[in-house]
């Protein structure tokens, strides 16, 4: 359950890029918000609103033009360490087995082999991939690859998890299953999760709070506290009404974008 200590502070962050034809593309404009310790925090917005950019800035993979990001009270100026980052395509290491992938982070952190094996096995079991340790990523389905990416990210006891639309490519059933799984893991691991998505339903199902971004350039449209008890029922009245409320806000955005 979320604590009260601020884990991530994003303050007045703006970012623009130079486009293909030399034009300026504003990705983010003056974004400010806090994420609390152990919070499940979703970043929601229409495509192209700078969600991924925001996540990358928080991770230190990109620098903001203005403003700053603090993690655990320290200014982020270079890529963070010990962060479980899952990009859209999972980016597994195809030359490593499931076990090898999960062990990667422990290897670079210098954990001795026996200990490494034990920890990796623990997380492979946690995500439900026992028995698949020796397989290579090419032999796995999309959902299983996703699980490997999660196990790999968790194995290093990360300071937080950054997930970029991790379930976007999964079919509807697998997606719902993975959503329950990520909640279960988050519950067991007590970890701050930043979860980027463009699915309102997904955000409402998962998040403690939702950051709703506007269309490009991304600004903070609203921060929504999802007060629903877990496990949440997608068909419950409160759930549906919150989803439609957020959809309404998004439609406003879309309308403004088109006009």
């Amino acid at each position: 359950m979320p604590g009260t200590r601020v884990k991530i502070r994003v303050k007045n962050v703006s970012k623009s890029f130079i486009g293909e034809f030399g034009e300026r593309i504003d990705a983010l404009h003056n974004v400010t918000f806090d994420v609390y310790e152990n919070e499940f925090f979703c970043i929601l917005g229409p495509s192209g609103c700078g969600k991924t950019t925001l996540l990358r800035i928080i991770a230190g993979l990109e620098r903001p033009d203005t403003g700053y990001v603090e993690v655990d009270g320290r200014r982020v100026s270079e890529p963070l360490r010990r962060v479980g980052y899952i990009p859209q395509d999972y980016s597994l290491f195809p030359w490593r087995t499931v076990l090898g992938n999960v062990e990667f982070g422990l290897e670079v952190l210098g954990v001795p082999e026996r200990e490494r094996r034990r920890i990796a096995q623990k997380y492979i079991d946690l995500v439900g991939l026992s028995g698949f340790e020796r397989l290579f990523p090419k032999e796995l389905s999309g959902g299983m690859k996703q699980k490997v990416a999660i196990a790999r990210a968790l194995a290093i006891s990360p300071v937080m998890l950054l997930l970029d639309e991790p379930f976007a490519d999964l079919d509807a059933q697998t997606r719902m299953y993975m959503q329950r799984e990520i909640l279960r893991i988050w519950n067991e691991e007590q970890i701050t999760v930043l979860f980027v998505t463009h699915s309102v339903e997904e955000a409402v199902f998962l998040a403690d709070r939702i950051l709703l971004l506007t269309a490009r350039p991304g600004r903070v449209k609203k921060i929504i506290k999802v007060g629903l008890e877990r496990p949440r029922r997608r068909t419950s009245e409160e759930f549906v009404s919150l989803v439609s409320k957020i959809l309404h806000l998004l439609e406003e955005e879309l309308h403004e974008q088109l006009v």
Partner: protein
Amino acid sequence: MIHKTLCVKIGDKTASERIKYIAGIGDLLLSIMTIVLAVIFWHTLALYLTFTGLPYLPTPIEAFRAFLLSFVERDLWGHTIIDHCIASLERVGLGFAIAFVTAVPLGLIMGWFRSVRVAAYPIVEVLRYIPPIAWIPFSILLFRVTLFSSAFIVWIGAFFPILLNTIASTRNIGRAQLEVAVLMGAGRKDLMFKIVVPAALPGIITGVRVGLGVGWMCVIAAEFVGVPEGLGLGYYVWTMAAIGRYAEMVAGMLMIGIIGLLMNYAILFVERRILRWREEVAGY
């Protein structure tokens, strides 16, 4: 139920297995047929040339006989074809080994650091269009006619395919994979040896395969010009032609081809084992 009806069983194999099996036999027959046709063509041509008194071409039978005999018969210098093979393989082995240990690290560095690549490209671009054969006089000036003069040519020949393939595959490494690794705590050394090297491995092995093939051609060419101790397959072919023993000449050519083929298959075999993780492994 549907699954069971779809997999019609023929004997103890399912239909799809059976089809694969039959297709395999078909392919094999087709290959054998081509070889038979080629040999018949060769034979006819040889006979025709003999009757018309045009340039002499040994028949396949003569060539095959010479090929078998070359294993036991000693030539003018007392060497069998095996001695020649060993000498050529030694040269190619040395040259190739040097090419591997120079081209792979350089390729990784050039692929990884843009500045090194930009700095080194002019030299690479100038040198790589000089055919290895053009280096033979230079090599003999440098090393005289020794093991090293041939190995040098092999090195030149094998170096560029390995280098260029290594550079290309290093540059192709997914940025996201590197970022994931960095955020997990990987340092520069980890990135190099745990991400860049394994990710570049398919390209490196392709370069090795091409490079070894080119190196093999190079050693034969270098041996045409001169060899120490009268040993080497290229030298064998050249001298047999010079003394009019054309069947032996063709036997030597066959040997060169067979060794080249075996080297390629050896690399493919290694490739399949090392790159089990890859989606597909190059065939021919």
